[in-house]
């Protein structure tokens, strides 16, 4: 019972860090460059989800006022949402740059396998 309670309290954090760890695992283990970039993108999504869930307030709605008065207390924190807006844009920029570098690497080496690209072996 205690365990279920814990799960239901922290389900968003668990989901967010689940995504983060899936991303890190892909980056560490996979050898295809495209898969590594996909892992980077998943990691980014996980961090965004974590920031949003930190700002959540129980039974809160979006911080947008309308003509129907819904009350100040039932609004979620707007600051993490603004931060995540920034983070999503930066994520798109990073993804585009990484993909263009992958295109260059493919043209130069003829492969996307990191094992075969000699300078990239670890």
């Amino acid at each position: 019972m205690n365990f279920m309670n814990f799960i239901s309290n922290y389900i968003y954090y668990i989901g967010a860090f689940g995504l983060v760890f899936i991303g890190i695992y892909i980056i560490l283990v996979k050898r295809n460059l495209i898969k590594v970039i996909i892992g980077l993108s998943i990691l980014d999504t996980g961090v965004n989800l974590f920031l949003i869930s930190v700002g959540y307030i129980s039974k809160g709605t979006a911080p947008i006022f309308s003509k129907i008065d819904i009350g100040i207390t039932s609004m979620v924190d707007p600051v993490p949402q603004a931060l995540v807006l920034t983070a999503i844009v930066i994520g798109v920029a990073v993804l585009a740059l990484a993909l263009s570098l992958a295109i260059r690497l493919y043209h130069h080496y003829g492969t996307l396998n990191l094992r075969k690209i000699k300078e990239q072996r670890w």
Partner: protein
Amino acid sequence: MRRIISIIILAIVALGIALCVINIPFGASKTKVGNYYIEKGREQTGAANIVTSVVVNYRGFDTLGEVTVLFVAAIGVSTVLATLKKKTKKEVEPASLVLSTGCRFLFPLILFFGAYIFIYGHLSPGGGFQGGAVIASAFLLTYLGCRGKRISEKRSKITESLSGLVFIVVGLIGLAVGGHYFLYNFLPKGVLFSLFSAGIIPLIYIAIGFKVGSEIAGIIDKLVEES
């Protein structure tokens, strides 16, 4: 072997993070600054959407930096791909009538929807970045649907530069006119919930929408050209 080491490292990191996160209560009100923005945001900025007033007004300078990051990434993509040896032009088979007609029908509608999203950014969910992404998706549709058509690189560069200039000039006017900081809201706030309200926020968001749209469309153009 590498897999096992990675899993062990991840397990250790996960344990550390779990011990930190367990002290952050989920669903409780935490920051004072968020409550301050929600209480005072309507009077101070005139925008109904508090996230917009945080992004454009309270933290407008950060948004300028964010737009700059996207700009640098667009320059980086074109620089990295510019020196690539051009392949021999493949003969592109033109799209079928159904596909090209549908794409020409949808293109203005998607542009219109994107414009709606960034013009109403201070009243409803949305804003410059989201609207710009929707506009860029319209250009992606033309690349996928009407093969062979390309956007003019010169025009997209001009749009991008002009909208960036509008952002900075509006901020500097605010600095000169009355405030003591960049992006001071010098225009009248107007009536809450009306389209012409919130001072400079709609102007800035329209500029951001054009800038983001042309930048992402330029990135898509570069990536499609090389593939």
